[in-house]
């Protein structure tokens, strides 16, 4: 503790769990948008990972509420948010937006995989056949016409899903941005920053996974896909970081009463996590690397390695950004006169081990899905770039 904090502020209410929640939702929204870039905007280069991104969005979505549930003082009452919502509260929208988005995602995945499942249904027998029939909800017929229809539905859902994904994550930013009591959070820019950082994290996680999986399994990589991902990553990270900097710049330039304490926060408690790590290492670093990839003629191996490194750094950048927002806003006292401190424990209920599990399990789930419906069949299909 440093300076004066209100006596009740010595306990940080929102822990690392609430850092993970916007992080995971960001991955959901970002991954979904990548799949929509293919389905809706016709970016053929992203076709090899369109399905992969869609299912990634889904597994992350499954895990987004988990840190929230683990954080609630009364998780047994979690459904109260749907049963007795207070619509004046920004948070009450969570259940509805989440449910709407989940429905869109499940439907899109169902229509996207329907033809494949029908093929398996036809080849299967016994219990497996019955399971496939249930999964298909009895719709076991397919021909060219139904394939076309399925594709059309997928495209429509992908289109409708874009604004919903943006709302889902913009809304998370709004949860923080609308808290007028907290000068580190209260800015209308917050939800825009959250949307762009979500897209960055989504592209970064897919880039990371695509490169990792193709390296690990020695698969033929579609270089056009990697190049497109790298280009988008570069573009979106620039917008995201500039927005983040503009927010601090406007606070600094306005020189309001709160700025004196915010400056202390940035140059003191958040110096390492915000300035050194988030801005200098994980924003400037990938910016330089991705600029080099885009502007210089580098050997393929090197440029892919730089893209891989950038994706790791940007995944860390977004996680750090969530930390600096969520924790930074709470270690700053509402007395504007001091700071408290927070470091999560290792084994406690809301500690680092549980946090790591919540982040890692979606990836394992993705791997399980891949075992049943391979995302990257061998040999990898080459798409014309």
């Amino acid at each position, binding site marked *: 503790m440093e*300076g004066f904090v209100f006596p009740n502020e010595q306990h940080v209410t929102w822990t690392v769990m609430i850092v993970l929640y916007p992080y995971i939702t960001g991955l959901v929204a970002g991954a979904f948008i990548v799949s929509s870039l293919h389905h809706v905007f016709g970016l053929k280069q992203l076709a090899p990972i369109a399905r992969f991104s869609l299912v990634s969005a889904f597994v992350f979505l499954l895990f987004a509420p988990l840190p929230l549930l683990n*954080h609630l003082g009364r998780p047994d009452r979690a459904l109260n948010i749907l049963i007795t919502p207070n619509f004046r509260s920004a*948070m009450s929208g969570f259940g509805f937006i989440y449910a709407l988005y989940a429905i869109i995602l499940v439907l899109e995945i169902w229509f996207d995989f329907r033809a494949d499942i029908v093929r398996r249904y036809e080849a299967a027998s016994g219990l497996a056949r019955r399971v496939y029939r249930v999964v298909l909800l009895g719709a076991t017929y397919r021909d060219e016409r139904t394939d076309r229809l399925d594709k059309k539905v997928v495209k429509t859902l992908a289109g409708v899903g874009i604004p919903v994904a943006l709302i889902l994550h913009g809304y998370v930013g709004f949860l923080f941005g609308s808290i*007028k009591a907290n000068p580190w959070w209260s800015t209308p820019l917050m939800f825009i920053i959250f949307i762009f950082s979500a897209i960055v994290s989504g592209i970064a996680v897919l880039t990371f996974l695509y490169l990792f999986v193709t390296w690990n399994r020695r698969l033929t990589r579609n270089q056009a896909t990697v190049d497109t991902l790298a280009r988008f990553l570069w573009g979106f990270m620039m917008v995201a970081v500039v927005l983040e900097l503009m927010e601090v710049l406007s606070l600094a330039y306005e020189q309001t009463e709160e700025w004196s304490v915010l400056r202390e926060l940035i140059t003191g408690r958040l110096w390492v996590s915000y300035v050194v790590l988030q801005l200098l290492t994980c924003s400037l670093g990938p910016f330089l690397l991705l600029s080099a990839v885009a502007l210089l003629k580098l050997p393929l191996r090197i440029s892919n390695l730089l893209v891989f490194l950038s994706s790791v750094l940007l995944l860390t950048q977004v996680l750090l950004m969530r930390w600096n927002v969520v924790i930074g806003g709470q270690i700053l006292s*509402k007395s504007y006169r001091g700071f408290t401190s927070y470091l999560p424990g290792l084994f406690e209920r809301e500690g680092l081990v549980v946090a790591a599990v919540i982040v890692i399990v979606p990836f394992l789930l993705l791997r399980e899905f891949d075992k049943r419906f391979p995302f990257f069949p061998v040999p990898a299909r080459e798409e014309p770039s």
Partner: protein
Amino acid sequence: MRPTNEDDLSRRRFLRITLAGVGGVPAATLFLSTQSKDLFPPPPTDLDDLGRFEWGFLVDTTRCIGCGSCVRACQKENGVPDGYYRTWVERYEVDKDGEVHVDSPDGAIASFQTDLLPRETRNKAFFVPKLCNHCRSSACTQVCPVGATFDTPDGVVLIDKDRCVGCGYCVQACPYGCRYIDERTGTADKCTLCYHRLHRGMTTACAEACPREARICGDLRAPKSRLRQVLRERRYGLLKPDLGTRPKCYYVGLDPEVV
């Protein structure tokens, strides 16, 4: 930090000295309690009748001596968990360079045992008791996702602990640091303005315990209430009025340093 045995001893000594030194305190308390009966309106007869009242609170910072009786009374009356505070007292000391130093050790539950600044470097010093402002447009009521925090018809902000999910959004939204999550129940908690006492014709535990009448709870709708009387006569301020929460806790002698 929790008070140690030594602190307890010194607190006891402090109380003894205070009680012995100010012989008039029991008499004053008696006087005030008889007064509050007159000044408190008759209890409501049914739920609709609650609309007759609008409870407010007044803190006279010029009268507070930082004894912490209010904090202790509140802990005792409401069973507030250790390390959390429904009310607390802040000490402000301004040094000769104009720099402001503030503290509130354990919410001042054991008063203030040591000086914040050496006497010779101190220019100005005062105490500011804090509690829930029971805002008319409270941010906590607005953000509660399940409607567990609500405004009573008589203007008190309360928490329905059978509905609260313990998300902590209200803790973040309160600009005054008045809320916390009670780890024993997993739900939000804060000052209730001793709602259980108000309609029995009793004032809040903190106001009752205050030896200096620095805290006054009263009905803003009753022109003759002590609260309205002081508000008519004295200049007062509100905490963070720019946030639009429209607090109903009025601070007499509020310094701009206090937020």
